[in-house]
């Protein structure tokens, strides 16, 4: 895709001749020396650098689930990426408000991208992104709905020295024990979600309640379940059952019967994607929703559109972004309008996360003035305050997690909805800094830059 104009040998010789002094000064650095066309400085070859950025365009590898249980949030996410890249290449106002160093493209280069279906499976995702890295010399890879995918790509990114940006990933592990030097997460996650929604639940539902969990059987489900138990404990809430179910089940009757017979007051459903739609719809058929209060600590995009307001009314949920935040944040308004104009619907939170991830990355590269990954990472780690669709945010250098608010919403009655997409009341926008764990709590140890 990207024709590499500078042969490695030629560039090396030229670089050596051109900056002999610099070479002597930093002879400890490994690798052959190559002159970066964009920056005046010289950096050694690393990952897809410099081949990936030697032409007049750079390539981003996008892999989202387009089939299977996470296909719906995957498609929304993809649209967010496409809009962001279009805005980058055009130097649109919105992206320049989030990435003020941007003029047009990234470091003057047009951004191109490829899309693959990761099927929400780690193996498929790693294969697809490895292809983008080896064949297209991707300077950045991105996309996830499953945390299993995000964690696998974190490892790939550290190994291949190519920056990876997870999109939707709710597991504590993504910026916890499986964090990566080459990975940065934008969205909220188990710990912050549970920390934000638990006080709201205790305040509105009362103390000493019994909880039944429905938990998808992988890193995301387990960490959300753990975090919810941790933060509901102060309210005296106890777990009566935790129904661990496989990813992509279509029938939840056995699990739901156990929940129906558990005597729980509150039903915490951690399922995501179509699993959330199926299990909530079936829970209603079993009469569970009329006897237990449903709470969704990590809400899947499009849930209300799919199960309808009759099911979602009164349901408490935590989310990353909801479009009516446009009344509160001017950038949200710009984003929602641009997205709606292009795609004909209000963006869900995956699209917002994708857009922000691309914009933040562009800002980091512009600040680094090079695509050399360690410099880009350091630009991220300098943790500048960034403008976003949810107000001011900043990455945390210690675990590469964005400190950002969590939005608590509650399903509206059909009669109270103003328009077809107005499914939720925004109850609270809980500031991120109060929600974050101390950096070492989740076990993050970042790897090496090179």
């Amino acid at each position, binding site marked *: 895709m990207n024709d590499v104009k500078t042969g490695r040998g030629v560039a090396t010789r030229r670089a050596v001749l051109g900056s002999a002094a610099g070479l002597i000064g930093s002879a400890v650095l490994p690798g052959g020396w190559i002159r970066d066309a964009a920056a005046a400085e010289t950096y050694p070859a690393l990952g897809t650098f410099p081949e990936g950025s030697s032409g007049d365009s750079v390539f981003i590898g996008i892999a989202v689930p387009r089939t299977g249980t996470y296909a719906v949030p995957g498609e929304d996410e993809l649209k967010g990426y496409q809009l962001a890249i279009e805005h980058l290449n055009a130097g649109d106002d919105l992206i320049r408000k989030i990435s003020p160093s941007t003029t047009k493209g990234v470091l003057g280069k047009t951004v191109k991208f490829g899309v693959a279906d990761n099927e929400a499976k780690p193996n498929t995702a790693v294969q697809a992104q490895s292809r983008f890295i080896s064949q297209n010399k991707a300077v950045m890879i991105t996309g996830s709905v499953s945390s299993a995918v995000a964690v696998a790509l974190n490892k790939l990114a550290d190994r291949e020295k190519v920056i990876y940006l997870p999109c939707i990933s709710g597991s504590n592990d993504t910026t916890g024990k499986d964090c990566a030097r080459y990975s940065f997460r934008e969205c909220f996650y188990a710990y912050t979600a549970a920390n934000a929604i638990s006080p709201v639940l205790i305040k509105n539902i009362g103390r000493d309640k019994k909880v039944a969990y429905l938990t998808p059987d992988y890193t995301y489900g387990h960490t959300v379940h753990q975090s919810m138990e941790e933060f509901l404990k102060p309210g005296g809430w106890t777990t009566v059952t935790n129904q*661990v179910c*496989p990813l992509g089940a279509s029938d939840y*009757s056995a699990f739901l019967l*156990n929940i129906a017979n558990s005597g729980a007051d509150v039903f915490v459903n951690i399922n995501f994607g179509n699993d959330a739609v199926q299990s909530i719809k079936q829970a209603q058929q079993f009469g569970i929703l009329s006897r237990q209060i449903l709470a969704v600590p990590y809400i899947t995009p499009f849930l209300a559109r799919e199960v309808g307001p009759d099911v979602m009314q009164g349901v408490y949920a935590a989310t990353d972004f909801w479009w009516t935040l446009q009344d509160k944040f001017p950038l949200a308004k710009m984003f929602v309008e641009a997205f709606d104009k292009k795609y004909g619907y209000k963006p869900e939170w995956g699209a917002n996360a994708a857009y922000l991830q691309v914009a933040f990355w562009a800002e980091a590269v512009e600040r680094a003035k090079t695509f050399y990954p360690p410099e880009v990472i350091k630009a991220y780690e300098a943790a500048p305050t960034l403008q976003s669709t949810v107000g001011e945010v900043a990455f945390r250098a210690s675990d590469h997690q964005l400190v950002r608010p969590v939005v608590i919403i509650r399903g509206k009655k059909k009669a109270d909805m103003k328009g077809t997409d107005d499914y939720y009341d925004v109850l609270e926008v809980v500031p991120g800094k109060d929600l974050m764990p101390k950096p070492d709590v989740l076990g993050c140890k970042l790897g090496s830059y090179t």
Partner: protein
Amino acid sequence: MLSWPNFLSQCFNGLALGALLALISSGLTIIYGTLGVLNLAHGAMFMLGGYIGYEAYAATQSYAVAVLAGALAMVVVGVVVERVIIRFFYARPPEDQILVTFGLGIVIVELVRLAFGSQSVQIPPPAWASGVTIIGFLIYPTYRIVVLGIAAVALVALYLVLYRTRLGMVVRAGIEDSGMVDLLGINVDRVFMLVFGIGAMAAGFAGIVNAPVVALTPDVGDTILVETFVVVVIGGVGSFPGAVLGGFIAGEILSLTSMIDPSYSQVMLFAVMTLVLILRPQGLFGLEGRE
């Protein structure tokens, strides 16, 4: 959640799950038994039956019309698929048959995704079967009880066709020895076409009957296909009674294991399948020595 009420609820639920699995599996096993083709597009046909029913429901708002349309349309789809694709693969090696039906499944799923998108579509249960039924301690969705009834009736109907009609006799003879049936001067070609149509109908019928229970998505047949294979292996490949018994066994395993530890319910299903394969490789009702 070990308690008597929950145990009995789960036993009943296993029955309801099992009836549906039995219905889908019987389609798969009849096709394999007669034609020798392992139809990996069976899950896609289950899904397609649901979507055709959905379209019919959207047009008429009638549950009965939706079920009829879903089932009958799948007979047509089955016959067309058999004539256009499958019949050219009877003489080909099993790998080719697996590849072509697997590919067919992908094409069907992605065509439906193209037409309907990945977001789920919903068919409500008929008004007379919505809500919950309370039988003592058991609170169960009324429509799921209806599904159990419908599946049972459909299984009996399939049994009658297979064991009480001339077509059924030919099909069963074909399962035993299709070469011999051919030698007897029976038009095996036409029987094969009909069998594929009936197999597809069983899948499509189950798909539309199950549609109000789930939210219909293009991927809804994927997990079902895997469970269906387990059922067929447990019951004995090619055996109709095996598919029925296997379906109920699988349903009970899924339900009862979930009571002790839900994360093991899928594991148990495969563990039992493995056990059957070790102790009785041909399956519970399978005939020894048949491929």
